[in-house]
C-alpha cells in the first residue's frame, strides 16, 4: 500500500483545459520548457463551459484524486460566456462533492490565458502539491477526507 504513504503518494489528476486559453497556456509552458509534476492527464475541451457535472463526477468515481478545470479569464471567453457558466457549476459541484464526503478543494477552477504559461506551471505544481497533501480521494477506494 505504497499509495497510502504520504511521501510516495502519486495522485492522479484529470485536467479539462479549454482549447483557446488554458490548453494554449499549457502549450506555452511546454514551448518555454517549464517543468511541473507529471500527475495530470490533460484533456482538451472546446470551452470550460463544456465540462459538465457528469464528467467531473465520473473522474472522481473512476479514481481521480483531483480534477482541474482551466478556462479563459472572465470576459475573455472565446464563446462569449461559457466560463461564467463553469464558475457557477463549479460552486455547485464543490457542494455536491462535500455531500458525498470528498473535500471540495479536490476540484479546482483556474483562469489561465494563452499567454500564461507560467500560471499554468504554477497552478499544476500547487494543485498537485495540495492533492498530495490531501492524500488519496475517498472515492478512489482507499483514502478518507
Amino acid at each position, binding site marked *: 500500500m505504497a499509495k497510502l504513504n504520504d511521501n510516495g503518494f502519486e495522485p492522479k489528476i*484529470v485536467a479539462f483545459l479549454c482549447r483557446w486559453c488554458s490548453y494554449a497556456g499549457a502549450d506555452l509552458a511546454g514551448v518555454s520548457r517549464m517543468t511541473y509534476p507529471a500527475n495530470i492527464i490533460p484533456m482538451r475541451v472546446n470551452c470550460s463551459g463544456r465540462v459538465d457535472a457528469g464528467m467531473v463526477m465520473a473522474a472522481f468515481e473512476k479514481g481521480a484524486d483531483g480534477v482541474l478545470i482551466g478556462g479563459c479569464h472572465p470576459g475573455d471567453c472565446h464563446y462569449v460566456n461559457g466560463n461564467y457558466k463553469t464558475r457557477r457549476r463549479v460552486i455547485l459541484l464543490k457542494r455536491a462533492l462535500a455531500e458525498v464526503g470528498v473535500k471540495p478543494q479536490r476540484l479546482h477552477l483556474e483562469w489561465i490565458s*494563452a499567454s500564461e504559461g507560467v500560471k499554468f506551471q504554477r497552478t499544476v505544481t500547487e494543485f498537485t502539491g495540495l492533492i498530495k497533501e490531501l492524500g488519496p480521494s475517498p472515492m478512489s477506494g482507499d483514502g478518507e477526507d
Partner: protein
Amino acid sequence: MSRIGVFVCHCGMNIERTVDTQAVAATLSEHSGVVFTTDYNFLCADPGQRLIRDAIAEHKLDGIIVAACSPAMHEPTFRRVAAEAGLNPYLCEIANIREHCSWVHQDRDKATQKAIRIVKTLVEKVRGNQPLEPLRIDHDDKCLVIGGGIAGIQAALDVAESGFEVILVEKEPSIGGHMAQLSETFPTLDCSQCILTPKMVEVSRHPNVRLLTYSEVVEVTGYVGNYEVKIRKNPTYVDPDKCNLCGECVKVCPKSVGSEFERGLVERKAIYIPFEQAIPSSYTLDEEACLGLHPLRCSECAKVCEPKAIDYDMRPEYIEESVGAIIVATGYSLYPISSLTEYGGGQIPDVIDGLQFERLLSASGPTSGEVRRPSDGKIPKKVVFIQCAGSRDPERHNAYCSKICCMYTTKHALLYRHAVPDGEAVVFYIDIRAGGKGYEEFTQHAIEEERILYLRGKVSKVYRQDDRVVVWGVDTLSNRRVEIEADLVVLAISMNPHPSNLALSKILKISCDADGFLKEAHPKLRPVESLTAGIFLAGAAQGPKDIPEAVSQSSGAAVKAVTLLTKDKLIHSPEVVEIDEAICGGCGICVDMCPYNALAVNGAGVAEVNEVLCEGCGSCVSACPTGAAQLKNMTTQQFVEMIEVALQDG
C-alpha cells in the same frame, strides 16, 4: 471502430529524450482495438506522412492517433494525410505528448507513463468519433479595418484595391495616426506628412472605402465570414458637408485645452481641427471641453458660423455592418511620461517625450520647425537624449525593447544638429539596435560625421537647476560618472499598447499578450492572424514596430483577409451539436444557454440545431438535463471512456 493505428513521433530528440516512444508504441499495441503501432523520427516530414498513408491502406485502419506535438501545430497536417489515404479526417486525432509531456517533465519513466495515458485517452476518443463532412457556408464580402493610422490605411487600401468593400473606423476626428505627427522618417529623412497625406487622401476617396472617423466599434457578434458589427459614430456637432473651413468658430471659442496632436505643447480650442491636412477636413466640437452644448450656455461658435454647420442636437449615430473579415490596426500609445519620475517626467517642463520633439522639429509644428524648448521658448544649445526610457527595465517599467527608439533618437539628434548648428547633442544608450535596411549606416553617419556624442550608459537621475536640466549618468566605456547641464532632455519613451486594445480584445474575442499587445496566432508562422478565424492584426497593435514593418504587416493582413473574402464558400467545423430527438424533452434550456442563437424548440417539441450558427462550445450539452444534446465527436460518453483509461492502474 476496431482497427485503430497509433503513430508515435520522436520529434528528433524533442520527444524521444524524455519519452520512450518505443515503449509507448509497444504498450498501445496491447490496447483494445489497436491493430497497428509504430514510432518514427519525424512524422510530419514527407517520409513520415507517407508511412501513415501506407499503414492506413495496408492495415485497413479505421481510426488513427498521431502522438506528437500540440494539435495546434499539426492537426490540420495529419488530418489531411488521413484524407489523402481515404480515411475521413475526423477519424484522426492528435495526442499531445510534446508540449504537454516531454517538454515539461524530466523523469523519463514518469513522462513515458504519462504519454501512454494521454495516447490511450485519444484512442478512446477516436473510437467514439464519427466520420464528418465540413459544413460549407456563405460569407459577407466586406472587410472592417479598425484604426486609421498608417497600418490601417495601408490595409484598407490593399483590400479595397482587390475589389472588396472596406469600412475603415478611426476613433479620432482624423485619420493619419502617429505618423502624421512625425517630422521626418528614418533613415531616409522623408518628410512624414509628405508621404502620408497622399495615402490619407487616397483612402478617403477610394470608391470601395467607407470612412468612419470619430467612431468606435462597440459590438461584434458572429463568426468568421459573418461578423455583425455595431459602430458608434460620435457626434462632432459640425456638419462636414456644410462646413467651409473658414475657421471663424475657432477664433470666438472661449475654451482652450491641451492639443492632443501637438502633445500638449500648445492649446487648441474646444472646437478644432486636429491638424491642417486632417481628413475628413472638418471641425470637431469636443463636447467634454465645450462650455455647454446648450445654446444658452455659450453658442459663440454657432453664432459666427455662416453656413450653419454647427448642430448642437447631433447625437451618436449607430451603424451596423455585416463583414467577412476584420483587420485590427489600433497602433500604440506612449508609456506615460509622468511614470518616469527618475527623469523628472511630467514635472520638469524641459523634459519631453520623443513625439513632442517630433512636433518641435516639424515645419507644421507649434514652433514652425524651430527647436525651442517648452519652458521659455529659448533655443536649446545642449540637448540630452535618453534612450530606453521605460523600456528594457523589467523592475520598474516595461521589460521589452520598443524597437524604434534607437533609430528615432539618431534621427532626432541629427535633425537637431541641422536645426541648431552650434548646438551639442548627447545620446545616452544601452545598446544601439540598428537592424534594418540602411539603419546601421544612418547611425554610424550620425555618430561619425554629425558630431553627436554617444555615451554608453544609463542615466540615473535628472533634475532641474535654475533654468537648466542636470543629467546624472555613467559612461560605462570609460567607467566615469557624467554630469551634464542641458537645456532640454528628450526621452526616447517606451511604446505602450494602445489603451483601447483591452476593451477591443474583449469585443472581438481575441487575446492580448502579457504586455497588452494583441496576440498573434503563432509568433513566427502566423504573425498577422489572431487566434480567432477571420480577425487579422496589423502594425504596432501587435507589438512595437517601425513604419516599414507596420506597412508590410498591413499588406500581409490584407492578403489574408482577401484570401478569405475571395473564397466561394467558407468551411465551418462539423463538430457541432446534435440532438437525440428520442430523449429530448423540449425543455428549451439549451436555447437559453446558447450564446449564438443556434438552437430552437421546433413544432414537434424537440430542440433543433442550426449547424451553421453552432460554434461547438458545448454550453448546451453541459446543461441538457436528459443528455439529448451532444457535441459530435466530443460526447459525454467519449469523455467518460477517456477519463476511465486516463485513470486506469498500470
